[in-house]
């Protein structure tokens, strides 16, 4: 697992209070990990803070699974 994926996973576990084995690549924050809409806003904020990037609202809306977040952040951190 990439460094980005590890860091994303850690944030998700901490913020959503879920077991590590549930935080798979295709786990949906709302449907699989019990998040509500406010939790997802906070998650995106935590990703921004951790990776020092800005995630615009339209991009944030497309991040619905753990894998979505990892792929977005892989790209964003590679670009910077």
């Amino acid at each position, binding site marked *: 697992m990439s460094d980005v994926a590890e860091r994303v996973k850690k944030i998700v576990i901490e*913020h*959503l*209070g879920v077991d590590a084995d549930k935080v798979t690549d295709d786990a949906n924050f709302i449907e699989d990990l019990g998040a509500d809409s*406010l939790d997802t*806003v*906070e998650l995106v*904020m935590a990703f*921004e*803070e951790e990776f020092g990037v*800005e995630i615009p609202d339209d991009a944030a809306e497309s991040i619905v699974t753990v894998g979505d977040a990892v792929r977005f952040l892989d790209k964003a951190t590679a670009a910077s």
Partner: protein
Amino acid sequence: MRRVVITGLGMVSPLACGVEDTWQRLLASQSGAGPIQGFETSDLACKIAMQVPRGDGSNATFNPDQWMDPKDQRKVDDYILYGVAAATQALADANWKPQTDEDRERTGVLIGSGIGGLGGIAETAITLHEKGPRRVSPFFISGRLINLVSGYVSIMHGLKGPNHAVVTACSTGAHAIGDAARLIALGDADFMVAGGAESAINRIGIAGFAACKALSTNFNDRPKQASRPYDRDRDGFVMGDGAGCVVLETYEGAKARGAKIYAEVIGYGLSGDAYHITAPDPTGNGALRSMRAAVKRAGITPQDIDYINAHGTSTPLGDEAELTAVHGLLGTADGTNALSMSSTKSAIGHLLGAAGAVEAIFCALAIRDQIVPPTLNLDNPSVTTSIDLVPHKARKREVEFVLSNSFGFGGTNASLILKAVA
């Protein structure tokens, strides 16, 4: 109007997490005071407080994980956490677990707070200033609103009746119980979880109360002696954190389901000082009218009252104004010698919006155990009175009628009267 009784108690206090442990430590004349832990106090005039003892839950310490999911704890200020813990304890103590839609819809929540999420507001203001609005948490508002104690308790326990909150500074807890009792008496609900919660021991809270000269500052090196209501050396209150909640229900309903009854809420009085934003009216007129209203509602005479749990915050002006009011209530009739009046703030500090609820619980326990809790540190009373101020040690005595006073900034007064139920 329907009769209303108290059937469940819950508490988080500076002495302990839990009603019985707090009560036993209070009766043993223990104090919850100490040097402030958790933030810098070197530049604060007041360096002491009565903080909730945290731990793994053993020895009656407060373990947040026992009361709220860790992921939710991060979203709220401590007053919500304490309020949820006290409400959960009270519902368990009352053995009331509404399962049907009807029962849920007939059970409401009315828990207030004096100032709510002061600490979180201060921290978030710094975040906003340093990092900008995109770093303000989506849980900032919901974790600081005062009525969110009632909100969380309602959601966690599925309580769908009236959902309300009181905000009357240091009278909050008493007003919450009084108002909730009326909702039941008038038929808006059959059960209410009512009380107050507070967590104002943080840098901005201490700085603010110190600025308006409300806090004790002469006892930073002797914290356990700082809260000394009625004593000539008192110089302000000592802040406390925590929460108190009761379960209220109809007398008939409690009897029918075989619930244990701690006491009946027979009197509730309210008044306004119309005098000053922070100072009490030195004549005690507002306090007197609040007590008189409660006595009238209760249908008793002032001489019937066995014990008063005083507001008694240990401020130079407030304690004597209240004593004056109590003397005014009793008048010149004999019977003054029969009254005991103590301030439990000497042991747990001033829990602001939670104070009235925690102190009403002590009143219910005084009735149950026929004992009145002490006023600690009352070495040299500043005034002479024939009222027994219960110095230093708890005292066994007959306790049938009890009055609890709470007075708040803005000149808001509330008095509750409880009665033993045979």
